[in-house]
């Protein structure tokens, strides 16, 4: 790929990369509370504030609940707002996540994905954000620190787009990405500034028929977060769904624009395909696991095995069409879940992918692998065993055991 603009290579852990992206994104308000493994983000950002390197009001709140309430209120007032959390912090925000998306506040949040208690565990899995999948937030998962950096910058554009106006959470795997130093290509401040611009506001009609910007503005008083009962609530919710649908196109478009500037692109912004064109067997995963999976696929390809990988970069909105079309030639598919849906029919990604393939002709045989909970390491050998099982499924044209656990003592 051609590098279009000048960039600076920095050694950054995922959390630092996120903080650096926020520093460059002309953010007005950051309201956040520390929690492992997100802590570095708030620490690093506090340094920027203390050293006068950012023009941002940093509100060091007393809980994640208040972090989200303050971010939402700042955003409603017209500020560009950012926060970050993980695990229990995200769970504490649960109530406010729905309010933020319902108020159509384009808050951007980094989630350093971590397991949920009990038992207490500080390491990486997707239990925290998967539990919030119906909260009306756009969800993106980064594969590495570079993507975490790039996604945060893109997230402001996506969230603030007038056809979207939804909050965006960017997931980065706890410790695996949040605390691991990588070389990250960073854009120059002026390039980020030019890419993001200042926040634009959608106009709405007042009851007097006047067109005014959608924010809390004493010049044009507006009531936000009202009570809407049986006669209006449903329409509000339907509009949110429409905004989610619009986000699919917007994410693709912004991924394209960003790619032109930086030379980096993540598939079409929604899904990234790896050797899928002629793949007979394939896996789907989110986040950092894809890095290891790609080396496994490389090795299999060397051996002449038609293996492929689909990395779901955007989980909400779920890109149905992109997934269906990417998997159209696949005969046996493994869906990987780094979280559980207790009592459900497999993990959340499995349930959704299996459901969206129901309508396709010749859909593949599908198997679910639940793996890596509480940060349990998943080795290339274990990941290779998935493809070996897929080869068996391909032969048998039948899935013996649809829900499996990888690397678990039973």
């Amino acid at each position, binding site marked *: 790929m051609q590098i279009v603009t000048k960039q600076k290579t920095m050694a950054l852990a995922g959390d630092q990369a996120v903080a650096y992206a926020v520093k460059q994104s002309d953010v007005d308000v950051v309201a956040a509370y520390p929690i492992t493994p997100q802590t570095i983000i708030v620490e690093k950002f506090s340094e920027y504030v203390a050293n006068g390197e950012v*023009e941002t009001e940093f509100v060091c709140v007393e809980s994640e609940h*208040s972090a989200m309430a303050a971010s939402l209120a*700042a955003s409603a007032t*017209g500020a560009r*707002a950012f926060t970050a959390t993980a695990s229990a912090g995200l769970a504490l925000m649960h109530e406010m996540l729905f309010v933020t998306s319902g108020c159509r506040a384009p808050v951007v949040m980094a989630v350093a994905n971590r397991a949920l208690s009990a038992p207490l565990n500080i390491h990486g899995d997707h239990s925290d954000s998967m539990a919030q999948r119906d909260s009306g937030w756009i969800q993106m998962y980064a594969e590495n620190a570079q993507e975490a950096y790039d996604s945060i910058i893109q997230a402001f554009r996506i969230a603030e787009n007038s056809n979207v106006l939804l909050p965006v959470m960017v997931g980065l795997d706890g410790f695996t990405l949040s605390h691991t130093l990588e070389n990250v290509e960073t854009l120059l401040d002026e390039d980020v500034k030019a890419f993001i611009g200042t926040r634009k506001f959608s106009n709405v009609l007042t009851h007097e028929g006047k067109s005014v910007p959608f924010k809390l503005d004493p010049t044009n008083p507006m009531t936000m977060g*009202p009570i809407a009962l049986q006669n209006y609530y449903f329409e509000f919710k339907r509009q949110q769904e429409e905004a989610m649908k619009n986000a699919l196109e917007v994410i693709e478009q912004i991924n394209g624009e960003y790619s032109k500037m930086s030379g980096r692109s993540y598939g079409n912004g929604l899904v990234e395909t790896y050797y899928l064109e002629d793949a007979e067997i394939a896996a789907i995963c989110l986040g950092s696991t894809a890095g290891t999976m790609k080396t496994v696929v490389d090795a299999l390809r060397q051996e002449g095995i038609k293996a492929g990988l689909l990395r779901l970069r955007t989980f909400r909105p779920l890109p149905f069409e992109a997934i269906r079309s990417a998997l159209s030639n696949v005969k046996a598919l493994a869906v990987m879940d780094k979280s559980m849906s207790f009592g459900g029919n497999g993990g959340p990604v499995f349930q959704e992918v299996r459901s969206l393939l129901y309508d396709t002709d010749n859909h593949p045989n599908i198997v679910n692998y639940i793996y890596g909970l509480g940060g349990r390491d998943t080795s290339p050998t274990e990941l290779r065993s998935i493809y070996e099982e897929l080869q068996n499924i391909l032969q048998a044209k039948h899935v013996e055991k649809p829900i499996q656990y990888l690397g678990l003592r039973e």
Partner: protein
Amino acid sequence: MTSQEWKFTTKDIAEKPDLFLSGHRACAGCGPATVLRLIMKATRGPTIVTEATGCMEVVSSIYPYTSWGVPWLHTAFETSASNASGIEAALKIMKKKGRIGQEHVDVIAFAGDGGTYDIGIQALSGAVERGHDFLFVLYDNEAYMNTGIQRSGGTPHGAATTTSPAGKVIPGKLEYKKPIADIMVAHNMPYVATASPYYWKDLLTKVRKGLEVEGPAFLHVFAPCPRGWRSDPAKSIEYSKLAVETCVFPVWESVQGQGRFRHMFKPQNKKLLEEVQRITDERWQRILTKSGMTQKS
């Protein structure tokens, strides 16, 4: 005009357009509705209001109608102070960056007793500790009235509510009303006051003072609820008077932290100050003795 200069007369009040408008769905004789209307009369310029879930939020914002003549935000029950934090932070930085036109915008957070004494106290304490410049108004109707009269930390001792009924064994609420304004004074915040809508001029003056101080201000307002109190709607204001006169709800103010003790430092009160010191020392000595420790000299 500052509160010292502005004489709140009936004429002033009548001439100033309402910002909490008629048409809301509050009950007849609703104390909180009167309180909110009066308070909005005391605003001094551009103002943003945020409000906790509760009676006043519900009656004033039924979509597609609104009673608010100012920008208004509701998000949840426990969030009026954290919302105020976000609004104030946004206004501060956006003014610095030239992104808002107004020279200054006041921020008022409203919450009932549930949203203040109970579910909202953490966010309130945090926002005050951080020193955000906003006025927090507690309209205290002494129970969760919006959900049907359940007891709160602000319900007085002995009161019957649906979750502290006066039964055969338990005669209403056993616990005492939490001293919320004292708790706020203990935050060493710039301004804390209590007020009653009967003494409307006092109420309006305190609102203005709360807006004028730099940093957080807390105003605790007595607000009778005819439905919840099983009282005559015509008597809400009368009760607001009686509560003050009987010392059930004393009105007072504390400026810059411990203003309530300022008089003790006057020469004529020297003995009072010495007495307080003596009692404090004696109590401390008792604690040391009980803990098996002795005073270090």
